[in-house]
């Protein structure tokens, strides 16, 4: 018990453990972002997290919960608006992403009593990780990994060929909702480490790095988790020793791993 207390009492170890927990779910989700070409979509949800924070302060609910709810609402709005086909999806994403970010910032400026570390929210903060966050991260990780394991074949099939999956009885629309819920969760828990502006990078870069070496979807998933962990561990160490911002340090490490793998490894045959 004393050892656990000593470890969790140290903010660096708390950040590291939390960060590895985030990498555990960012890897698999990142693969889906890459496979389903949802990078911009993920970015939009991440940007709307700031709106979620403002809303949480406004109606006094836990930050993580506020972020999850806001992300889910924005995701639903996106799905509904894209069905009307009035605007191209990327235009729609651009509008929602930046409007949500801007509304969030404006709302926060109206609340002078609440002191928020804006840089920390946008770019991540090594010091901000508390024990409650760790609970959110590992609770979220268990939920996301459990859902992935349960729905793996169906999720994969609907990603490979949506119409074929539907004909074979895969509930494609419901799976899309589940995937969005997982996104919202991951964004809510990853926000503290890498910040809302860089979450997509933590999703995409390790998954893209993994693609180069992977032979099966599961292989790619495992490698993405591994590269995510390397990025978190390397980035936080860098941040600790050189006093660089946590989020950018993690992303820089992920990018270096990406360059290294693409520069040296032969393309996997599958």
């Amino acid at each position, binding site marked *: 018990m004393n050892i656990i207390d000593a470890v969790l009492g140290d903010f660096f170890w708390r950040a590291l453990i939390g960060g590895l927990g985030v990498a555990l779910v960012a890897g698999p989700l990142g693969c889906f972002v890459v*496979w389903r070409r949802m990078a911009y979509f993920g970015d939009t949800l991440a940007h709307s997290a700031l709106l979620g924070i403002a809303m949480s302060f406004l109606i006094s609910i836990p930050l993580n919960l506020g972020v999850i709810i806001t992300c889910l609402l924005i995701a639903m709005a996106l799905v509904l608006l894209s069905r009307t086909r009035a605007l191209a999806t990327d235009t729609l994403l651009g509008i929602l992403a930046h409007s949500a970010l801007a509304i969030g910032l404006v709302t926060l400026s109206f609340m002078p009593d609440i002191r928020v570390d804006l840089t920390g929210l946008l770019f991540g903060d090594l010091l901000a990780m508390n024990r409650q966050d760790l609970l959110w991260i590992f609770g979220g990780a268990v939920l996301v990994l459990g859902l992935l394991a349960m729905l793996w*074949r169906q999720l994969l*099939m609907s990603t490979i*060929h949506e*119409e074929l999956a539907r*004909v074979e009885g895969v509930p494609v629309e419901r799976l899309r909702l589940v995937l969005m819920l997982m996104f919202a969760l991951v964004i809510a828990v990853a926000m503290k480490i890498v910040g809302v502006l860089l979450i997509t990078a933590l999703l995409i870069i390790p998954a893209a790095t993994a693609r180069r070496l992977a*032979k*099966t*979807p599961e*292989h790619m998933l495992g490698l993405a988790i591994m590269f995510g962990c390397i990025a978190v561990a390397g980035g936080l160490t860098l941040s600790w020793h050189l006093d660089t911002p946590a989020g950018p340090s993690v992303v820089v490490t992920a990018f270096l791993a990406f360059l290294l793998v693409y520069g040296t490894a032969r393309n996997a045959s599958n």
Partner: protein
Amino acid sequence: MTERLVQLKQLTVRFDDRPVVDSVNLTVCRGDIITIIGPNGAGKTTLIKAVLGLQQATSGQISVTPGLVIGYVPQHLSLEATLPLSVSRFMQLSGRSAKACETALQRTGVAHLWNASVHHLSGGEKQRLLLARALARQPDLLVLDEPAQGVDINGQASLYELIRQLRDELHCGVIMISHDLHLVMAATDKVICLNQHICCSGHPADISHDPAFIETFGHQVAESLAVYHHRHNHSHNLHGDVVATSETHGACDHEHH
């Protein structure tokens, strides 16, 4: 009576008030091979998507036998290159056993690709893989959207022949879209000429005389079809005289055009 698999009654699909499929009545029975032909934009793909449950009908009825297993061969297999996937894995994602998947691949002649990446297949190999995947599900109904796309001309003929054989083996119904009129004619029971509505339908031999068909496709196509549809229940000798073959027992119901 043969078992009815799918029945469409007055099926209409509209996109923005423009009817894409207009009051179509169609019944597919076990053992049928029905080919849908028609010009571009005639609503062929929309029609089969309605049968598959992928497209909602604006009005009309689609009744599908409960528990019907459908094998679907989509027009393209466009796969995201970022997803590493082997042929065997793609097959097994159907939920069928490895054995069943391998048998299906053998039947469509691509079993040697078991360990290959799906990203490295040729157009013809992809079509045969998709057909094998549909086959592995032991379908009651095969639905194919231009199955011979990207397949060379020799491959096309053998692919249609394979579809006909599969119908006999599985005793399933087949509904397909095709542009390869002359190739399809030999392997189909019923042709439906679609141009939003069904302009004509019937046996391939009869349809090429139908005024509605000639109007849609022009005289040239109709005539070339008539030539192609040539029942080979007899042979010709070197002088062009009809020679009886064993199957026909000397009878000749030859239709020359």
